[in-house]
């Protein structure tokens, strides 16, 4: 055999052995965990879009956070590790300095730490696991502390966490970000819920081959899909007005001993919401620490019997169809009335025979309203209730918006027409009432309420299209109701609280709460809705208290709060009495 043949045999033998080895690695060797680490597809999370107030201040932004994991195989004493890290992984509400915590809170903190220690120990006990998650969305300062402890077997993975710099301010409006069943960030309630798909963007994919040192091998495809950052929102919310409203609302809710208070402020000409607040509120940064019942925004999700504020709708329908005029005299106002077996009386048992329709509104006279309702009839009143949109959503960009509760017209009896005329026997949402009063303030043109002014996509700001306006009632009718509302403020029960020099249009409402088939006289929803200045409205506002205890009446609770907030808005928007 010559040397050439020997060389050929060696080359073939080497080639065969390489093929055999490759065959072994490819098909026979069982190394799942190692092989996956060389070639993998990594999800690239997209940054969630931010939510800005109208002054471009971020009401919802993102902050750096970390996922903390442990490798059980590398940990010698589970309890030691758990003891070291547990105090840092309990709720952030205990993050205040120890001295600032009350005795009870200190005890709670100790219990929480104990529970966390137990949980961590259990997690890392299983030595068969390669990796266990210890904590999610851990803030950077905590990660730094844990990093300095140099604990063997503990690792960190970079992540993002939603952060609300103004804490509980506008919480009901914003909603919050939690996790869905797959552990992915998801927006719940408010704007976070409504715009979840837009805000979350689209995560990308990284098709990646790595060498044994973990560095990417560049011969294969590298980035397969780039992540698409979420869109950001610019709201119509005026941060200063929102702050004023929240401060005043908190003080008033506590002062009047109400279970809950809600305020909405809007701009009638555009439908833009300037402020929307409810007290008690919650901190979306720590939403898990609050009762789930607090998450829904009562301004759009609560239905209530509006009481006397609904008289505005009945009067609007009656004036618009010309069945009455502001000077029409009430022919049945001399005393209580019996309708369908029920007695209809006034709230203070005072009666004003032959009062005009303007005076009926001024005295908030239920008997006078039954007179108007009878002139109007069920068909017309029902038509206007539908025209004003009480049977449908306003379309405001909040996830939990609900519609009012209006029974079918066929079910209305004579007594239903009578009670509906003064706002009982039907239910509306606060935002629907604001939309209606906006229409009156806007010369009869209805513009649906809106919260988002512009959307930022790829650093480009796009204004959101204004919703179409609709002439719902005539300008004349709107002007007549405005004058009646001004008269109600000037001469009504709440006149003592009104800021001097300003013409404010408004209407009080006190509705008993229906409980188990009857009305509880001690439990009411007190409200006040209006706008100012009356002739050139700059804002519409609704104030509503649930079960105020110091007084059950809207004129003694909601109206003074309306005027308190209005005074501050006058100063802030530089509205002088001359602007009337």
């Amino acid at each position, binding site marked *: 055999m010559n040397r050439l043949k020997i060389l050929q045999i060696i080359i073939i033998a080497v080639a065969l052995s390489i093929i055999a080895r490759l065959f072994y690695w490819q098909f026979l060797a069982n190394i799942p965990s190692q092989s996956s680490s060389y070639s993998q597809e990594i999800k690239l999370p997209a940054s969630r879009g931010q939510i800005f107030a109208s002054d471009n201040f971020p009401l919802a932004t993102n902050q750096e956070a970390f996922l903390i994991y442990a490798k059980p195989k590398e940990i010698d004493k589970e309890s030691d590790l758990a003891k070291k890290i547990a105090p840092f992984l309990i709720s952030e509400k205990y993050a205040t300095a120890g001295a600032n915590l009350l005795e009870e809170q200190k005890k709670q903190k100790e219990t929480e730490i104990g529970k966390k220690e137990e949980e961590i120990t259990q997690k890392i006990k299983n030595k068969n696991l390669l990796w266990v998650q210890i904590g999610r969305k851990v803030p950077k300062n905590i990660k730094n502390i844990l990093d300095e402890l140099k604990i063997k077997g503990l690792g960190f993975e970079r992540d993002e966490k939603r952060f609300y710099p103004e804490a509980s301010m506008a919480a009901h409006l914003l909603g919050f970000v939690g996790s869905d069943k797959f552990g992915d960030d998801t927006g719940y309630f408010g704007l976070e819920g409504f715009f979840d798909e837009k805000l979350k963007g689209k995560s990308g994919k990284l098709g990646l081959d790595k060498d044994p040192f973990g*560095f990417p*091998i560049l011969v294969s495809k590298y980035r397969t899909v780039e992540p698409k950052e979420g869109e950001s929102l610019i709201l119509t919310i005026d*941060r200063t007005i929102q702050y004023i409203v929240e401060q005043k609302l908190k003080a008033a809710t506590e002062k009047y001993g109400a279970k809950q208070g809600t305020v909405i402020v809007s701009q009638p000409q555009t439908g833009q919401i300037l402020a929307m607040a409810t007290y008690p509120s919650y901190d979306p940064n720590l939403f898990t620490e609050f009762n789930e019942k607090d998450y829904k925004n009562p301004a759009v999700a609560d239905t209530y019997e509006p009481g006397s504020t609904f008289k505005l709708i009945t009067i609007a329908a009656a004036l618009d169809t010309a069945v009455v005029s502001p000077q029409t005299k009430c022919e049945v106002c001399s005393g209580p009335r019996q309708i369908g077996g029920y007695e209809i009386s006034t709230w203070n048992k005072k009666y004003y025979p032959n009062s005009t329709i303007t005076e009926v509104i001024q005295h908030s006279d239920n008997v006078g309203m039954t007179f108007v309702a009878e002139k109007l009839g069920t068909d017309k009143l029902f038509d206007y209730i539908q025209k004003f949109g009480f049977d449908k959503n306003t379309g405001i960009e909040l996830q939990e918006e609900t519609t009012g509760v209006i029974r079918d017209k066929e079910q209305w009896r004579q007594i239903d027409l009578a009670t509906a005329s003064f706002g009982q026997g039907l239910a509306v949402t606060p935002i629907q009432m604001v939309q209606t009063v906006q229409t009156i303030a806007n010369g009869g043109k209805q513009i649906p309420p809106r919260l988002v002014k512009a959307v930022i996509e790829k650093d480009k700001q796009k204004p959101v299209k204004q919703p179409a306006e609709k002439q719902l009632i005539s300008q004349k009718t709107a002007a007549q109701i405005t004058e009646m509302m001004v008269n109600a403020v000037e001469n009504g029960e709440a006149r003592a609280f009104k800021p001097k020099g300003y013409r404010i249009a408004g209407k009080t409402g006190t509705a008993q709460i229906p409980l188990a088939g009857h009305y509880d006289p001690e439990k009411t929803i007190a409200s006040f809705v209006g706008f100012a200045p009356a002739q050139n409205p700059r804002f519409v506002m609704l104030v509503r208290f649930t079960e105020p205890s110091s007084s059950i009446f809207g004129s003694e609770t909601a109206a003074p709060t309306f005027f308190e907030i209005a005074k501050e808005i006058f100063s802030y928007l530089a509205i002088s009495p001359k602007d009337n």
Partner: protein
Amino acid sequence: MLKKDFKLAKKENFNVGGKIHVRVLVAVTTVLTFLIFAQLVFANNLAIDGQKLSQVEEEIKNLQAENTALKVEIAKASSFTTLSQQANDLGFMKPSKVTVF
């Protein structure tokens, strides 16, 4: 042709064939050596580039994280909640009466 001449011719033919084989082998070996060397250089460059890319990406991530942290700090410091608390602590008070001229 004589038997002797035939053997000589065969030997010469073989020498020519052998020379060609050797040349081909040398050429193939040279090309293979060059390719192996090129592969080594290429793989080495890739490994270095991968490492560099990894470093650059890490740097980008760190800068982005720092940027986010600073934005959050600014938002925290300029929030109304913080500002009103500071104003309170410094003894600022709201005007008790606003006069409009």
